[in-house]
């Protein structure tokens, strides 16, 4: 347990410090959201309607961009071999690494989203709902993305491939995340229905992600 806690702290410190991972992701998020009005026009009604979707797409892209270094740094410096030989089960190690990665890069996105939602002219209730769905949904993105990160760990430039592999798998999270955020806006259905499914998807990704990523890492290490 202490080993996993130490790993969490190490990963978190590294992610926060090296290359300013946390700030970088949030900055990218800000830029994506800023660029959208240039594309669709500064119509505030339109922006408040598509706001939750924009925030979700921004968070999705920001998460994916930060993921390619999840295992690659460890592979480059040989840390991955130590982890593979270590006593802690690889699945748990991957889980802890994902949690630390999320705490360093996903959480800042969630914190920044209410601020960005103001730019999108969203109503307070929609801001709250979107932030809540991002809080529940971004871990699912990180866990799913870990599979792609593990599969592309041996590649020099796996970033784009990682996004291609992972994006189709994130479709359900995206659908239910945006749906629960817009449910409170339109009131066409209870917020709890899609939100419960989103939470279920998150828990499912928490199991499947580490299992599949660990399998991929074992075979990559052979």
């Amino acid at each position, binding site marked *: 347990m202490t080993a996993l806690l130490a790993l969490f702290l190490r990963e978190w410190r590294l992610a926060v410090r090296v290359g300013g991972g946390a700030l970088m992701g949030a900055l990218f998020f800000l830029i994506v959201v800023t660029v959208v009005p240039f594309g669709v026009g500064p119509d505030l009604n339109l922006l408040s309607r598509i706001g939750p979707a924009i925030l979700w797409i921004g968070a999705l892209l920001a998460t994916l961009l930060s993921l390619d270094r999840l295992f690659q740094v460890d592979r480059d410096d040989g840390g991955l071999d130590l982890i593979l030989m270590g006593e802690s089960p690889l699945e748990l190690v991957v889980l802890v690494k994902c949690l630390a990665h999320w705490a360093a890069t996903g959480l800042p996105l969630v914190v920044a989203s209410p601020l960005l939602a103001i730019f999108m002219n969203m109503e307070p209730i929609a801001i709250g709902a979107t932030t809540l769905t991002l809080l529940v949904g971004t871990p699912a993105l990180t866990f799913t993305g870990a*599979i792609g990160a593990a599969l592309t760990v*041996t590649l020099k430039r796996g970033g784009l491939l990682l996004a291609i592999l992972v994006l189709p798998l994130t479709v359900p999270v995206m659908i239910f995340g945006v749906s629960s955020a817009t449910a409170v806006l339109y009131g066409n259905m209870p917020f709890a229905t899609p939100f419960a499914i989103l939470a279920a998807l998150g828990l499912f990704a928490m199991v499947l992600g580490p299992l599949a990523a660990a399998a991929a890492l074992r*075979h990559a290490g052979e």
Partner: protein
Amino acid sequence: MRLIDYANPTRFLGLVAKVLPWLGAVTAATFAVGLWLVFFRAPADYQQGETVKIMYIHVPFAWLSMFCYMTMAGSALGTLVWRHPLADVSAKCAAPIGAAFTFLALATGSLWGKPMWGTWWVWDARLTSVLVLFIMYLGLIALQETIEDPARAAKASAVLTLVGAINIPIIKFSVDWWNTLHQPSSVFRMGGSTIDASMLIPLLIMAVAFSLLFVVVHLMAMRNEILRRRIRTMRMIEAAGAE
């Protein structure tokens, strides 16, 4: 005769050489019967007119896009669990064929949709899930092509294939749910039981014909892949001997 008896590639090649001509003949015959029924016997739909002829290829393509993926998922299990030497050859060869059929399902769906809906593309639940499946096929092929070492590429794509297989039902469910949210109903409802026998029989024959076609192309591609790996080994032996 068990599957493991054909773990030896040489024996597998022998079997393919024996079976392939017969299988090819049966495939051609099934296509002849199916196409004859479609073009000379099947009635026009009272609503869609002759456009319904597109259904006889669109539905088999959609079915095959799933069937190819199931073949790949089975092969992926064979690679990871039983380490069957031919499983990864089978998975690797099924991917481009599956992508081709999925592309055809999308293209014929679009060509069918234009006269029916008035647009080339509708974010219909079925078409959208097939589009996501198509992207997954392309991702798998990209992964196989990018990792150079064949053994490592096989393991990585096997993991991804299985993850995809687990996720496909979830994606399908989400897309259906999303679709009912945004548009109440779509134009084609191909309810399985409501279709008349005069259309169902040609459809089933066409589905069988395309499935046989898949098996023929898959076996031929597997034979090529086995030879390719044999050549790779021989080149490595040659290079090692030259030193």
